[in-house]
């Protein structure tokens, strides 16, 4: 079969468009639209006493100014808590425009609409907001100490106390031959898509309908939110995600205030309105992630096998909880990784701070969980004088234990049951790929060059492809073109290629004939969105099922026309043919024409089809009962639970003991996402994830000062790694297909970022012999650590005397 494309490294079809400037991003739309700009709070916590817009009114080109006072109906109510949870006992959300109190720098207070963005900023600059400053809470420790409260009715700053346990942890710890307790920290970073958020809205007064473009990861839900908040019927609203320049999680949050305010202004003004977020706005008013304080107690036996694990996490959720406690739940449940932990208890206290909200950023709580678990493994190995790989190996779930039930409840409310995997296989491949057992030689070589070298590893399991569902629609046109539509959105992952590969393979057509559309509510109204490494699993399977439906119908029609047994028919290269009988065939495009009994001969396709058309039977309706005109099919994939991908990373770092510069000189990844649709795209996803992992480990942090001012809200001072900072990455694949879905695939989008912080922390610790308990770490911090007489040294370094 020549059209088998599943599993092939098909080149990304979208790239020619995207890299030659022919992409259509949010800011490419609506060149003549009015522009919105926002007056945002300069204070981290303050009461809004007065908003004086007087001075802005004579700015030429000003069209409108909106404050909270101008909001009506549902718009004047707090923004929704998207994902409520019983353990989120104090959910808080902001308003589209500040109502009385601001809780972080960057919170929108006034919206200005003008003829262009320059004018809008001129006017915004003239608006005088009077604030009364309130005490500020920054950082998870300050929130925990609760000397001040972010929300006055939540005096302990605790929004949620998430708790899961698989047994009685205290007696298990008491019975453990060895125990260790330690506390560690991980800092804030952020998604930082190159394209910020953005919204364009156009109201058609004659049609009483609204079209909104949003740089979103969830156009169907943005549509629902806009309809509800602006009191419009759902059928009067369409939302389209155009080309989106990266998401990484921040654009799954919805509705952003601007996603409601821009359409509101468009309706009120009867004009197109657009807002394209600038970089500073993105830093101070979108979302961050990752800050946690982790208090860990582990019990283990003489062989290093864990007998009990008790974890208490303090999680900084920022000023509000619009996305519920997804990130804490993911940390809590994914922390256990590939290991069999007999008794596990986790409590995550999610606390308010006067900072930008915390919502999923690629990995979504997993990097933190992995950091907790993997650094625990390192501690056990160090305590017992065992090899770190060996300790891990002894704790791994073995291949014969699948499906493996952790007795935990995942983010989707379903049990954490690992569907398939081979974790010892991952570890073996990783050890070979990175040369783990030859680390001594690498170390000696580095020492001869005056460098300190360390190796570290980290393993993870990632629940991917959560439900509830995703749908696909496949339609064959008379031209032979195959239209594929799914409701979830694309942010550059390669969906146009991957979904086309799947449909072309399933249907038996050339990939060139397949056209993929995503994220457009005009084409597909039911969708969940692109997040949680779910697009390939969910929409991949949905479009496969839809294609199978089309194939079945095509064969039914063709069998009728060719007077053949359907079981003898196959579709290849767009031709339906009787297997083994050359000439007994009909093009799929002709089948498409025949599928519709109304055949005005507008085109050649219709004319050609007439030779195949049979006279209808006089005693049957032209469209049989239960049938429908057209060669198309819509189907949904709804999994019983998530499918669990896995992987193992290793980092080799070199450190200059004169300057304490840290260089990742080797990075190895073994990756298992089940059946791979396109290995090139999977590797690209891994590369991007590793880059963000290196960023999170060594470069990126949100540098808030004690007043809640973000001191590095620009690309000059927020250090995302350049290509020059990202190491070459060696990748090996392992494929353990998922038994849960028809294609046997697992998600791959987030994987690359998950173990970076853990593996690099381990490698640095290995190199310098000092305990690394806070990440990211920069050269200046490493210098401080090495000078600190009281800094804890690893057992390994005390025994070998290396390094100094």
């Amino acid at each position, binding site marked *: 079969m020549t059209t088998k494309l599943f599993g092939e490294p098909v080149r990304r079809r979208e790239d020619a468009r995207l890299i030659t400037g022919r992409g259509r991003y949010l800011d490419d739309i609506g060149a003549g639209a009015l522009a919105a700009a926002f007056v945002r709070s300069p204070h981290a916590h303050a009461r809004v006493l007065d908003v004086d817009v007087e001075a802005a009114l004579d700015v030429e080109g000003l069209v409108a100014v909106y404050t909270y006072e101008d909001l009506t109906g549902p718009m004047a109510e707090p923004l929704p808590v998207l994902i409520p949870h019983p353990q989120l006992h104090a959910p808080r959300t902001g308003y589209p425009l500040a109502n009385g109190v601001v809780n972080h720098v960057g919170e929108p207070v006034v919206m200005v609409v003008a003829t262009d963005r320059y004018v809008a900023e001129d006017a915004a600059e003239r608006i005088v907001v009077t604030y009364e400053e309130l005490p500020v809470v920054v950082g998870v420790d300050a929130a925990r100490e609760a000397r001040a409260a972010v929300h006055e009715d939540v005096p302990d700053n605790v929004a949620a106390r998430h708790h899961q346990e698989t047994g009685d942890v205290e007696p298990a710890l008491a019975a453990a031959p060895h125990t260790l307790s330690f506390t560690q920290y991980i800092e804030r970073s952020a998604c930082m898509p190159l394209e910020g958020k953005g919204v364009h809205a156009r109201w058609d007064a004659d049609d009483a309908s609204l079209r909104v473009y949003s740089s979103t990861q969830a156009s169907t839900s943005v549509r629902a939110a806009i309809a509800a908040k602006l009191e419009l019927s759902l059928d009067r609203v369409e939302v389209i995600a155009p080309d989106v320049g990266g998401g990484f999680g921040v654009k799954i949050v919805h509705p952003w205030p601007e996603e409601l305010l821009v359409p509101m202004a468009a309706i009120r003004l009867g004009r197109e309105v657009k807002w394209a977020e600038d970089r500073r706005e993105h830093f101070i008013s979108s979302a961050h992630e990752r800050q946690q304080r982790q208090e860990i107690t582990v019990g283990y036996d003489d062989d290093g096998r864990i007998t009990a694990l008790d974890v208490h996490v303090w999680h900084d959720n920022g000023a509000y909880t619009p996305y519920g406690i997804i990130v804490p739940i993911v940390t809590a449940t994914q922390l256990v990784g590939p290991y069999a932990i007999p008794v596990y208890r986790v409590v995550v206290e999610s606390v308010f701070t006067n900072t930008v909200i915390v919502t999923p950023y690629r990995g979504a709580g997993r990097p933190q969980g992995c950091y907790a678990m993997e650094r625990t493994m390192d501690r056990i190995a160090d305590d017992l004088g065992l090899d770190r790989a060996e300790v891990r190996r002894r704790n791994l779930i073995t291949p014969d234990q699948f499906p493996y039930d952790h007795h935990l409840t995942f983010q989707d409310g379903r049990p954490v049951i690992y569907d398939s995997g081979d974790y010892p296989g991952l570890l073996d491949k990783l050890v070979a790929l990175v040369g783990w057992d030859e680390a001594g030689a690498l170390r000696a070589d580095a020492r001869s060059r005056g460098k300190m070298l360390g190796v570290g590893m980290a393993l993870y399991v990632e629940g991917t492809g959560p439900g509830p569902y995703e749908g696909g629609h496949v339609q064959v046109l008379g031209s032979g073109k195959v239209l594929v539509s799914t409701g979830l959105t694309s942010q550059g992952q390669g969906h146009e290629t991957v979904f086309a590969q799947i449909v072309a393979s399933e249907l038996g057509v050339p990939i060139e004939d397949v056209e993929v559309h995503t994220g457009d509510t005009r084409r597909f109204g039911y969708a969940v969105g692109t997040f949680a490494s779910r697009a390939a699993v969910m929409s991949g399977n949905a479009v496969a099922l839809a294609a199978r439906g089309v194939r079945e119908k095509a064969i039914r029609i063709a069998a009728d026309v060719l007077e053949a047994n359907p079981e003898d028919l196959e579709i290849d290269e767009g031709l339906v043919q009787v297997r083994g009988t050359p000439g007994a065939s009909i093009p799929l495009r002709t089948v498409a024409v025949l599928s519709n009994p109304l055949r005005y001969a507008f085109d050649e396709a219709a004319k050609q089809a007439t030779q195949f058309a049979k006279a209808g039977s006089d005693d049957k309706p032209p469209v049989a009962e239960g049938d429908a005109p057209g060669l198309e099919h819509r189907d949904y994939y709804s999994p019983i639970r998530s499918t669990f991908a896995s992987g193992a990373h290793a980092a080799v770092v070199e450190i200059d003991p004169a300057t304490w510069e840290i260089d990742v000189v080797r990075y190895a990844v073994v990756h298992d996402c089940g059946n791979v649709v396109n290995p090139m795209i999977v590797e690209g996803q891994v590369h991007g994830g590793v880059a963000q992992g290196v960023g999170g480990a060594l470069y990126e942090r949100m540098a808030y000062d004690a007043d809640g001012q973000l001191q590095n809200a620009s690309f000059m001072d927020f250090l995302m790694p350049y290509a020059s*900072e990202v190491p070459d990455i060696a990748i090996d694949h392992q494929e353990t297909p998922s038994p849960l879905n028809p294609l046997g695939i697992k998600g791959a989008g987030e994987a690359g970022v998950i173990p970076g912080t853990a593996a690099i922390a381990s490698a640095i610790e290995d190199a310098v012999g000092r305990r690394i308990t806070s990440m990211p770490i*920069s050269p200046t911090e490493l210098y*401080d650590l090495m000078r600190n007489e009281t800094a804890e040294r690893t057992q390994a370094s005390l025994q070998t005397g290396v390094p100094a």
Partner: protein
Amino acid sequence: MKPAPFRYADPRSLDEALDLLSDETGAKVLAGGQSLLPLLAMRLAAPATLVDLNRVPGLDTVEATGDGVRVGALVRHARLLRQTPDAQAAARVQPLLARATANVAHPAIRNRGTTVGSIAHADPSGEMTSVLALTGGSVTVATPAGRETVGWQDLFVGPLETSLAGGAVVVDAFFPALPERSGTAFAEIARRKGDYAVCGAGVVVTLDEDRRVSAVRASYISVGLVPEVHDLTEAVAGEPVDSADWAAAGALARTLVDPDTDIHASADYRRLLVGVLTERTLADAAAEAVQRSAA
């Protein structure tokens, strides 16, 4: 991040530029724009008028003579790194200039940003301010009253602040030639390749006729509020170049500097780097001094 309204003027002569600058209050000179335009976009600067020098003739030359290298106001950083006769001559006369320029940001910025603009911007994190200081350089300043030479000591007043009056245009910078029996080196450490340095060091080593160290001077990047030149001679004076204790010079340097703490590095860490970079660059500079002594 859109600039506040400003007037834009693109004079065709230096006189016209000076007229515009003296007529307008709050006018600012635009050359490469690599520092100025982000400041405008963030509304950290809001000049009433931008006077764009890019169409003023005669400001784009690099002249190397036995005395030194004169770099015109419109010479882009990248120009000093090219293999053209003027750039090569400049590199022979004062090799520190190109060596430091190679550390200026990224190619795109080096293609537009100017050496003189970087000096006039007076950012202590910029390479060119320190190079001007270390070479004992000066700038030529044009005002409606005429031209004058301003030595580096009189130019830098504070971070992003010079002694120049609003209506002045820096038309060139002059970097004196490297003295004989001397060598230079430049190195910096940045968090990411091409970023502003956490710390940078430029050094000049001069030998006597017996290949003994006679003078050592250094200037640092991102250390202190204005460029300074530190004399490190006493740490190694009279030592044979092959066995000079460069580490001692590094240690001395650490006692002379007064760096600040920011989000990227503590003052202590910068002081550490001052020592390390001094030691490393002095060894390289000494090698060049030996080579040039032999020539």
